């Protein structure tokens, strides 16, 4: 396999960027829906395959703007996988939206082009070996998602896009200020110019940086990228953007974009941890994580819209992940990585199901969606399995990661474990309560289903993976995650 990779005329890491980049340009020219959707799937599938090869073959960081290490390869593989399955879901979902006239066919070129542009910018953000380039990529990803959230052009969608744009831009602006401060801290040590923004050089010299500047920089980076992660109290854009955009975009937002911002945050956390005099970044993350968890858990009870419900659940889980990485140490970091992977898979699966639910019931209001297991058994039971997984019931993968997190917290900081467990139980109660309403009882009327049914395949693949991870984690994966957990410190 490695020998085969050497035969290729280009490096796989370039392909991870070039394929979506070219596909974005090509798809922007294709007005036919079917052809566009197929090419979108093909491009996403190819990107995923090339991302897989990164597990075997790393580029030389000295000659490239890009780099791959054990940490970001996890994010790239997970992200391109979810991007691929979402493109399969999107093909049938968007077809249905066009049939019912909710989406004008004229926007197809725009939608597919933006989908690939988003994939390009996320892969660039994850693999960039330069904090400035990483910032540019996250900015680009924000702008493409803003445009996608407003795709339906309704008043509500435009307002959601506007809110997302304003809050996201402020976040991104604060992150840029933090990035400038990192450069200022690095310049006296590394020297002027490009090298003082290269990640591999930064981390190698971080112990000599001015700790005061690093501290201030981290505050701005945490507020900036934290807005993109959706941590409370900076989360206000997230529920609107999830609820008003097309469902494939909700899946990509929760499954991918939040992870990219989290990745940026983790990189800077590593930078601070490498400087013995700088403030410890862990407690800050733990606080933000706990606030997000508890806040979102309460808000889950008040939701009336099914997509908003699961958007708040994403805030809850990003809070949990931030908490885990804030705790640090091999076990909590391992739990955080596993939780992030499981959350991406489960939450995008739930959004695949929710998108279909909203289509068959013709509404997103929780009160008008009842008795799904009776009226649509396959869809209803898939949603039940997905929500059971996200609520943390065994034997699903999220149970494993939450169990690891809670037990490691009890062992090290028993006082912190109390709010953690309280938040988990609160969220669990809310989800189960909502689930019984949606899934069981006498069914509410459905829309007469004229169009074709969206594909269930991506949904089932994700849930099966989450189930397998809950029952048995393969040895190499465990070893890999343990290695990354050590790297994160």
């Amino acid at each position, binding site marked *: 396999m490695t020998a085969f990779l050497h035969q290729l005329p280009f490096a796989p890491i370039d392909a991870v960027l070039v394929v979506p980049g070219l596909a974005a340009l090509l798809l922007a020219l294709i007005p036919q829906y079917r052809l566009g959707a197929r090419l979108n799937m093909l491009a996403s599938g190819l990107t995923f395959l090339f991302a897989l090869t990164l597990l075997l073959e790393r580029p030389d960081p000295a000659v490239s703007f890009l780099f791959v290490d054990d940490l970001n390869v996890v994010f790239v593989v997970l992200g391109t996988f979810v991007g691929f399955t979402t493109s399969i879901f999107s093909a049938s979902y968007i077809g249905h939206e066009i049939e019912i006239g909710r989406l004008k066919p004229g926007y197809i070129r725009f939608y597919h082009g933006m989908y690939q542009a988003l994939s390009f910018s996320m892969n660039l953000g994850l693999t960039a070996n*330069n904090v*400035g*380039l990483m*910032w*540019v990529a996250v*900015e680009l990803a924000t*702008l493409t998602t*803003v*445009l996608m959230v*407003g795709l339906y*052009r309704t*008043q509500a969608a*435009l307002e959601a*896009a*506007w809110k997302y*744009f*304003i809050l996201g*831009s*402020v976040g991104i*602006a*604060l992150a*840029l*200020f933090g990035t*400038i*401060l990192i*450069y*200022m801290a690095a*310049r*006296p040590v590394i020297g*002027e*110019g*490009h090298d*003082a*923004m290269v990640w591999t050089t930064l981390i190698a010299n971080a112990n000599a940086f*001015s700790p*005061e*500047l690093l*501290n*201030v920089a981290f505050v701005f980076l945490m507020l900036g990228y934290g807005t993109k992660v959706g941590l409370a109290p900076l989360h206000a854009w997230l529920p609107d953007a999830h609820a008003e955009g097309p469902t494939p975009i909700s899946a990509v937002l929760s499954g991918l974009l939040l992870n990219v911002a989290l990745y940026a945050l983790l990189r800077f956390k590593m930078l601070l941890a490498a400087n013995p005099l700088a403030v410890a970044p862990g407690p800050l993350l733990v606080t933000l994580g706990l606030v997000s968890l508890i806040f979102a858990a309460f808000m889950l009870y008040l939701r009336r819209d099914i997509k908003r419900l699961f958007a708040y659940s994403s805030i809850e889980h990003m809070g949990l992940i931030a908490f885990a990485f804030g705790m640090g140490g091999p076990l909590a970091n391992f739990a955080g990585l596993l939780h992030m992977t499981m959350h991406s898979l489960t939450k995008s699966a739930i959004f695949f199901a929710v998108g279909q639910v909203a289509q068959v019931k013709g509404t997103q209001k929780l009160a008008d969606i009842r008795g799904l297991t009776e009226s649509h058994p396959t869809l209803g039971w898939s949603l039940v399995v997905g929500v059971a997984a996200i609520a943390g019931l065994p034997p699903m993968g999220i149970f494993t990661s939450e169990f690891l997190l809670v037990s490691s917290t009890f062992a090290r900081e028993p006082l912190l474990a109390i709010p953690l467990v309280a938040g988990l139980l609160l969220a669990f109660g809310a989800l189960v309560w909502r689930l019984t309403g949606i899934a069981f009882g006498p069914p509410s009327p459905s829309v007469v289903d004229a169009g074709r049914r969206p594909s269930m395949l991506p949904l089932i693949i994700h849930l099966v993976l989450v189930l397998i991870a809950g029952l048995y984690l393969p040895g190499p994966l465990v070893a890999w995650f343990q290695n990354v957990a050590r790297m994160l410190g």
Partner: protein
Amino acid sequence: MERFSLDAAHLLAGGMVLVSFMMLYQNRILGLLNVFAAHAVVLALSVAWQAYVQSAPHLFVTAAIALILKAIIIPVALHHMVLRLGVHRDIETVGGIGPTMLMGIGLVALSMVVMLPAAAEADPIAREDLALALSVILLGLLMMVTRQNAISQIVGFMSLENGLVLAATGARGMPLVVEISVAFSVLVAFIVIGVFLFRIRERFDTIDTQALDDFREGRE
């Protein structure tokens, strides 16, 4: 000469903070746009001065972008939009002008307290510039939260972005500054104008189709 270049840089950066304060109390949207244009002019001067002092000719590009795009094209475009939308009325300010100004002063004090000791090891031109740039950023944020009107929010965001450009150009030898400022300005301009066009056009669209539907129902 060393002393003079330092003073001139601080004067221009301080001028931006002053113009940011002027923006805070503008209660007419056209006045706000004029002050924003002045903000961009001061930014262009400041960046040009940094380009000269650091002998970094590429920064002149950033200065030219600030002057042409932010001081001329965007204010003129927004001016037209405001007149066409007919929203050149007063802008509401949450909490009144007095408290807003006091909060602004507090934010400037905060950024001095935070940045001056933190950047003590950096060279003096960058140290004070960073503190002043942070003041401009925070004042831009303050403006965004105190204004309800979408156009004033955009102006607030663009003044915040001016603060970022000031900080980036003050950091001697920072790579990607020109690229970042180009990307930021062009994309922001695109989105701002795009969102506005969509809003206006779609609103007309919906009104039109609504009228058509009503008409058809009336006939049947």
